[in-house]
């Protein structure tokens, strides 16, 4: 006979108060670095669709707090911005694409700054 199943529900494991601040910051640092790569690749024209795809992948799925975690609202906005940026870039509308990547990168940086004061 194996170990008894824990009483805690899956939802409890994702309770926002149980998500370490350091982990939330770490996740945003990851995303920010991929957005920096994306921006540089767009300016230099070196594999921009590939690198933008990496940035898009970095925000895929729920954050460290799970589907009800404390950062899901901004992560959803980032998914929308990066996804549209990649579409506009594929359609040869550089300004519309870069505009979205800039805003996404700034939202991530400002969130990290905000979290550092919590």
């Amino acid at each position, binding site marked *: 006979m194996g170990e008894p199943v824990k009483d805690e529900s899956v939802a409890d494991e994702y309770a926002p108060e149980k998500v370490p601040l350091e982990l939330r910051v770490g996740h945003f640092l990851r995303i920010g670095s991929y957005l920096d790569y994306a921006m540089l690749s767009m300016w230099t024209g070196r594999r921009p669709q590939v690198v933008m795809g990496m940035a898009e992948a970095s925000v895929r799925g729920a954050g460290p707090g799970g589907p009800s975690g404390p950062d899901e609202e901004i992560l959803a906005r980032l998914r*929308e911005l990066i996804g549209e940026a990649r579409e506009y870039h594929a*359609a040869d*509308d550089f300004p519309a694409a*870069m*505009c*979205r990547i*800039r*805003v996404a990168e700034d939202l991530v940086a400002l969130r990290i700054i905000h979290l550092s004061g919590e």
Partner: protein
Amino acid sequence: MDTKRHDQDIGALTSGAMAEPWEWVRKKIPAGTQVFDAHTHVGVDIDGRAMTAAGMKARMEAANVHRSIIFPLNDPNARDDYLGPNDVVWSAYEEYPDAFVPFFRLNPHKNYETEFERCVKRGFGGLKLHPVSQEFDLDDERVVRLFEMAADADLPVLVHAGFAMQRIVEPLLPTVERVPHLRLILGHSAMVELLEATRAFEDHPNVLFETSVVKAKDLYVLFCSLDPTRICYGSDIPYGDLPSTLHTTLGAADAAGLSEEELAGVLSGNIRRWFP
């Protein structure tokens, strides 16, 4: 989503995923502020980018921006003296005199005296210098002489101090100290040397820091380290755009705790001290 190419369709900058950030920007701009963009280009660049006077004006109207400083790009038709691109900027100014403040551009490696005099007599509002595109150091004696000529003519100089720059404070500081009446706009806020620049130029009130295409984390440091009355907003059109650069500036200012009065200064009042 409509993704066909439309260089002049500024709606793509404020719709879809940009609608919410843009709405936040519009609400965040202090009431009554007539936004002044201190860094834009009109003409064509060797990299293929271009902006017309009408395109620039349309962008300003769509974003409710009141006035803009305009100057030439790194124009393939510049030849030695930038006369042609400077004339393009002057024509744009004549078309929209209430919207544009025209700056002329020069190549310090070439004979610039005649074009400098022509542009001063014509009534240009300032001079633009780009150390990366024209490949010069800020302490090159020909550049220092241009700074002195501009100061004597009471013309502000906007110098590119952003991407690809590797020496900013150390070569500029001696000129700023020796020519205190030189009015200098640091384009892109000295980006890589931002913090060092705030310390070096803190006591030189004729040096303004301009925010275009500087990231929010850099601007946060700037707003936390320098009197906000020394900072002015810019977009760097066509490399930047109004919605995202306004979002960056306002987001960083918000995080740094700027007051509405300080914010209005950054967006308008600070650069208007020189261009009422």
